[in-house]
């Protein structure tokens, strides 16, 4: 447990020292969302209809963008190898990595999302659902993405590959996340959708760290 918190502290400290780790995904999130009104139509009614989807897709891409770096620097300087041979269980380290990744990306994205919701004229009654769906969904994005990051960490051009591997697996989250926001904007209950998002989160919390550990072992030891 002590090791777990120490690992989280180390990862967060590293992110705070490299401010771009935190700000680049957020800036990307904002910019992607801005492209849609410019590219499609600035009309409020039209934007309100697509806002939920746009924000979710932007969050998904922003999370994916930062995923490639999850293990890369530790792999490059050899600390990943040290973690593999250390007596501490690798799964704890991986879980700490994922949680800190979520804290600096997914959590911040969820906090920033009301701003985008205003820009895209999302109905105000759906605002809570949007933040809630992102808070429930983005941890799963980090968990599933970590598997892809682990598989591609030893490869030279893992960046494109990781999106190819992981994006198809993100589809259920996108569907349920946007469905939750849309249900809320039509004044329908959102409990069902949040239960599904929560269930997916719990299942991936159970399995994804193990798959990530297996992936890291393959990448490092061959």
């Amino acid at each position, binding site marked *: 447990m002590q090791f777990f918190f120490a690992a989280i502290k180390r990862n967060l400290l590293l992110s705070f020292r490299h401010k771009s780790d935190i700000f680049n995904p957020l800036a990307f999130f904002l910019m992607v969302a801005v492209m849609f009104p410019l590219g499609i139509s600035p009309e409020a009614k039209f934007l309100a209809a697509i806002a939920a989807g746009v924000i979710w897709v932007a969050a998904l891409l922003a999370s994916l963008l930062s995923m490639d770096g999850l293990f890369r620097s530790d792999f490059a300087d050899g600390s990943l190898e040290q973690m593999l041979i250390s007596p501490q269980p690798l799964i704890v380290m991986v879980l700490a990595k994922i949680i800190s990744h979520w804290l600096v990306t997914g959590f911040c994205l969820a906090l920033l999302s009301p701003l985008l919701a205003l820009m895209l004229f999302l109905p105000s009654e759906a605002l809570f659902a949007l933040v809630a769906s992102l808070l429930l969904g983005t941890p799963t994005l980090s968990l*599933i993405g970590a598997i892809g990051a682990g598989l591609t960490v030893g490869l030279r051009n893992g960046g494109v590959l990781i999106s*190819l591997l992981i994006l198809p697996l993100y589809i*259920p989250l996108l*569907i349920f996340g946007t469905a939750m926001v849309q249900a809320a904007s039509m004044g329908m209950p959102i409990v069902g959708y949040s239960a599904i998002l929560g269930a997916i989160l719990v299942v991936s919390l159970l399995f994804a760290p193990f798959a990530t550990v*297996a992936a890291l072992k393959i990448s490092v030891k061959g």
Partner: protein
Amino acid sequence: MKLKFPRWFYRLASPKWFYEISSKLMPWLALVTTVLMTIGLIWGLVFAPEDYQQGNSFRIIYIHVPAAILAQSCYLFMASAGAIGLIWKIKMAHVMAKSAAPIGASIAVLALATGAIWGKPTWGAWWVWDARLTSMLVLFFLYLGVIALTSAFDNVASSDKAAAVLSLVGVVNIPIIKYSVEWWNTLHQPATFTITAKPAMPAEMWIPLLIMVLSFYSFFALMLFARARIETLQREKRADWVQDLIKNHP
């Protein structure tokens, strides 16, 4: 409790034995595939009765449904082979998984393409964002991911294991993807064949379909063997039996 399997089962893990047995099996598989596919195609495309609503356009079912069924089974096969390879460290299982991936991807494309051709006369559109179409498309993406990951590694052993992990993760996700898109949007008719119920069409229609499904499976086995044989030779090129083979067949 200790499980004991017949001897041939253990010998499946030997590349040399696989190479020998597949040389003997492949002509038979080719024969079975040709016979079944000829019967199924002629029966289905010429003699089966017309559909009372769709007329003759329904006949593409004899390609579309077998392709769709096979594309899904092939993924399961690939993932199980990957799991066997990961758990028991069997070389041949990885060879099988690697050989199955491109076949599965092309069969998925076939299912999507025939679906589009069938969709045009019946739904009036080549593509609709329907649950089954979307999940088949996602299945195709999963195949692409596995193929891309396999080719990204230089080292055969790590590429095998990485692809196995990814295909297993995909297996967990397939039901989730399937139900998520089903609840999201659906237009496609429900499954044609289920194990529990009798097909909702007359026997003259579904028997040729069943024959086509079987012929597709046999075709898959044939292609799998052909690919796996080449892969085996490449991987075992330093083994004595491969060297002997090269000397005896210049």
